[in-house]
C-alpha cells in the first residue's frame, strides 16, 4: 500500500480511520483480517492479513506417502473437497503415467460437478447474507444438503470426502446413485429459479452489486485471477474446455462470461455455471460406461524422479498441483496453486474508493475459503 502524503488527506482533514475487519468478523468468511483505511466510510486502502488458518499442508506432504497425503488436500478448500481431491489424484496419476479407467473418470466428473454446484450454493448463500438477504442462505443449504447426502451415501463422508483414489476410485457407486443424481438435477432447475426470483431482478440487489468491485480483463490477467472472477471480466478461459481433464471432453456445455467484470456479472456467471454443471451431470448420468473403477497401480507408489504440474478448474478458479518426485514413496515437494489465495489479491484493487459495505460484498464475490488461502 502506498502511503504518500497526498493520499492521507481525507475529506474533512481528519486522520484516516484504521478499522480492523476480522479475524473475528461475521462476514470475512473465516479468519481473514482486513485492515481498512477509511475516510469516513470510504475505503482508501486495504491490507489483508492472512495465515490464521495456516497448517503447513505443503510441508506435511513431504512426510507422507502419496496416498496418505490425499485426504489432506480435502482440508484446503473444505467447501469443495471433491474438486481438490480430483486435482491431486490426477496430478499423481500424471506423474505415475497411469490413467484412470473410463468409468472412474465419468463418476469423478459427476461428483466434481455436483461439488461445483454445492460450492457455488455456499457462495450464493453467504454472499447474499453479506449483502443483507437472509433467506437465500437457507434455500441454498437445503439444496446443498441433497448433494451432501449423495456424497455421504457414496463414500460415507459429507464434507471432507476423500472420494477419489490415485488411479481411480475405491468404491463402486451405490444402487440408487444414478437415480439420486438425476432427481437432484431435475429438482434443481426449479430451485435455481427461486434464487433468481429473490435476487436477479431485485433493484436493491442490482444497486448493491452493479459497478461494485470492477475488475477489467487486463487486471484479472495481471493479478492471475481465475475462475468465475476472470470469466466475469469477459475472458473465456475454462480449463474444462481449454485443457480437458477427467471426462469433460465428452460433454456439451457452455462457458458463461460477463462483460463488466463487476459483482453482478460474477453473480450471473456463477448462477449460469450451476445450470451448466447440472446439464453436465444429466448428460453423464445417462451413460456411465461399465468396467473397472481402479487403474493398474501398485500398493506402494514410487513415481519416477521428475516433476509434474497439473491444474483443474475448481469451483473457485484454477487449482494447480506442482509435485516433485525423487523416486521414493513420498513427494519431495508439493506446491499448490490455490485459486482463493490468488483471487484474494484483487481485493485491494477492487475495494479502493468504495464504501465499507462494498468491501463485504467484494469479499463475498471473490468466493474465498480461508482454508485454501492459508493452507
Amino acid at each position, binding site marked *: 500500500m502506498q502511503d504518500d502524503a497526498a493520499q492521507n488527506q481525507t475529506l474533512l482533514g481528519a486522520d484516516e480511520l484504521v478499522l480492523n475487519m476480522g479475524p473475528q468478523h461475521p462476514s470475512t468468511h473465516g479468519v481473514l483480517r482486513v485492515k481498512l483505511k477509511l475516510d469516513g466510510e470510504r475505503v482508501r486502502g486495504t491490507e489483508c492479513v492472512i495465515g490464521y488458518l495456516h497448517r503447513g499442508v505443503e510441508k506435511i506432504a513431504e512426510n507422507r506417502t502419496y496416498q496418505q497425503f490425499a485426504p489432506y488436500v480435502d482440508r484446503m478448500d473444505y467447501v469443495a473437497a471433491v474438486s481438490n481431491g480430483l486435482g491431486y489424484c490426477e496430478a499423481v496419476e500424471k506423474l505415475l503415467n497411469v490413467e484412470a479407467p473410463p468409468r472412474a473418470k465419468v463418476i469423478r466428473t459427476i461428483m466434481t460437478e455436483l461439488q461445483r454446484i454445492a460450492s457455488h450454493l455456499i457462495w450464493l448463500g453467504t454472499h447474499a447474507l453479506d*449483502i443483507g438477504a437472509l433467506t437465500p442462505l437457507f434455500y441454498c443449504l437445503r439444496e446443498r444438503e441433497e448433494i451432501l447426502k449423495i456424497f455421504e451415501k457414496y463414500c460415507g463422508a459429507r464434507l471432507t470426502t476423500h472420494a477419489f483414489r490415485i488411479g481411480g476410485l475405491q468404491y463402486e457407486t451405490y444402487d440408487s446413485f444414478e437415480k439420486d443424481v438425476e432427481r437432484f438435477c431435475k429438482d434443481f432447475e426449479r430451485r435455481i429459479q427461486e434464487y433468481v426470483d429473490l435476487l436477479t431482478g431485485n433493484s436493491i440487489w442490482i444497486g448493491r452489486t452493479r459497478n461494485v468491485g470492477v475488475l477489467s480483463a487486463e487486471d484479472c490477467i495481471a493479478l492471475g485471477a481465475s475462475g468465475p472472477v476472470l470469466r466475469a471480466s469477459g475472458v473465456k478461459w475454462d480449463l474444462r474446455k481449454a485443457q480437458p481433464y477427467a471426462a469433460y471432453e465428452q460433454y456439451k456445455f457452455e462457458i458463461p462470461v460477463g462483460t463488466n467484470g463487476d459483482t453482478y456479472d460474477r453473480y450471473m456467471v456463477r448462477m449460469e455455471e450451476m445450470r451448466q454443471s447440472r446439464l453436465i451431470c444429466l448428460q453423464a448420468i445417462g451413460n456411465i460406461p461399465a468396467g473397472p473403477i481402479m487403474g493398474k497401480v501398485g500398493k506402494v507408489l514410487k513415481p519416477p524422479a521428475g516433476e509434474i504440474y497439473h491444474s483443474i478448474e475448481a469451483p473457485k478458479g484454477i487449482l494447480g498441483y506442482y509435485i516433485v518426485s525423487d523416486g521414493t514413496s513420498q513427494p519431495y515437494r508439493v506446491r499448490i496453486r490455490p485459486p482463493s489465495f490468488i483471487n484474494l489479491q484483487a481485493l485491494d484493487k477492487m475495494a479502493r474508493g468504495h464504501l465499507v459495505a462494498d468491501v463485504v460484498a467484494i469479499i463475498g464475490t471473490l468466493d474465498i475459503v480461508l482454508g485454501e488461502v492459508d493452507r
Partner: protein
Amino acid sequence: MHPNLQALLVFVQNWWVELVSGVVIVAVVPLITGYLVLMERKLMADMQARLGPMRVGPHGLLQPIADAVKLLIKEDIIPDNADRFVFWLAPVVSMTAALTAMGAIAFGPSFLVARDINVGLLFVIGVSSLGLFGIVLGGWASNSHYSIMGALRSTAQLVSYETAAGLALVSGLLLAGTLKIRAIVQMQESLGVWFVFLAPVAFFIYVVASIAETNRAPFDLPEAESELVAGYMTEYSGFRWACYFLGEYANMIVVGAVATTLFLGGWLRPFPNVHWMNWLDVLPALSIAAVGAYCVYRAGKQPARVQVWFMWGVALACLATALILAAPLYGPLSFLQPGLHGAFWFLLKISAYIYLFMWLRFTLPRYRFDQLMHLGWYILIPLAIVNVLAVGVAMILETEYGWNRWLALVVTTAFTLAAALFLLRLNDKRSATASSAAPPEEPTTEDSYAG
C-alpha cells in the same frame, strides 16, 4: 397525618391511572417484546424452510422467558476505555423513550394508556425520536470503531427519515384536523373511511420511513451484522444489550400504533358504520377460539406430558380470551364492546403492520448507506412535500369550491404519483451519469453523513 404523606396521597389520587398504566407498560411491554421476537423467529423459520425454536416449551413457546433469564444473568462487560456513566445511561435512554411514547397511545375509545394529551401524536413522535440519543451516546461511549460508525449511520438515517415520516404524517393530520389521538380515530369513524384510502401515498411514505426509523431491514445499516458486527450495540452485553433490544422492538410497536391510528382507523373494525357488516363483531371471539382449538389439536401430538399440559393451558387461555371477547355480543354486556373489540382490532392492525416489517426483512437485501440517503433525500422527502401540498389542495377544492372529496383526492393523488415517477426518472438519470462508486483516483466530495 404528615403533610408530605398527605401530599403523596393526593398525588396518587389524582394520578393513579397514569401510575398504574406506567407500571403495566414497564411490566407488559418486555413480555410482548419477547413474544414478538419469538413470532419473528418462527415466521423467519417458516419462510426459510426450517422450524425455528422448538426446544424450550412446546414449539418454543417459552423461549422468550429463557432468553430473558439468560440475558439477566449474563456477565455485564464494560470496555476499559468506555465512558462508564454514558455507557450506563445510553441504553436506559433508548428504552425509556420507546416505553414513554407508548403511554400516549389509545388502544380503544375508552382504553387509553395514559392521558389524552391534546398534542398526542406530536408527543409520541417527539418522545420516540429521543431514543436516538441513546444510540448516539451508546456508540460514542463504547469507544469502538464499529460502535461509532453504527451510531453515526444511525444519526444520519434517523434524522433523514424522520423528516419524511413527519411530512407523511402531516398529510394525514390535514385530513384529521387534530393531533389528539382519540379525535383522529373518531374523525375516521365519522367520515366512514380510513385515511389510508384518502392518502395512500402518505401511508406508503410512512411505511418506508418507519422501517428506516426502527432500523429494520432493508434499512438496518446501523446494526448491519455483516458490515459493522452489531453497530452501536457491539460492545454491549447482557441486560444493557437487552435494554436496547427492548427499545427497538417497543419502537416497532409505537410506529405500528401511529400508523394504525392515523391511517388504518385505529380501534375501528373494518366498515365501522355499515350495519349489514355487523357480523364482523363475531370475528374477534371466533379467531381467538380457532387458535385455542388448534392448540387443543396440537396438544395431542406433543411428545412430553409437560408439553401436553402446557399446550392445554395455552388453549384454555385462548378460549377464556375468546369468551371475554364474546361477552359484548350478549345484550346487557354490550357496553364492553368498544373497549374490548377496539383493543382487539387495534392490536390486530399493529400485528399486521409488524408482520409486514418482518416479511420485508426476510425478503430483501440491505441498502448501502449512500443509496439509503439518496432514497431519503432525493425521493421520499420531495415526494412527501408534494403529497402534503396535494392533500392540502384537495381539501381546499373540497371546502372552497365544493368538489366531491373523492374526485379531489383522486386528481391530487394522480398528481403526486406523477411527481413520484418524475423523481424516480431523475434519480435513474443521476445514478446513470455518476456511478455510486467513485474511482479511487478522484476522491468524491459527496459526504455520506450530510444531513
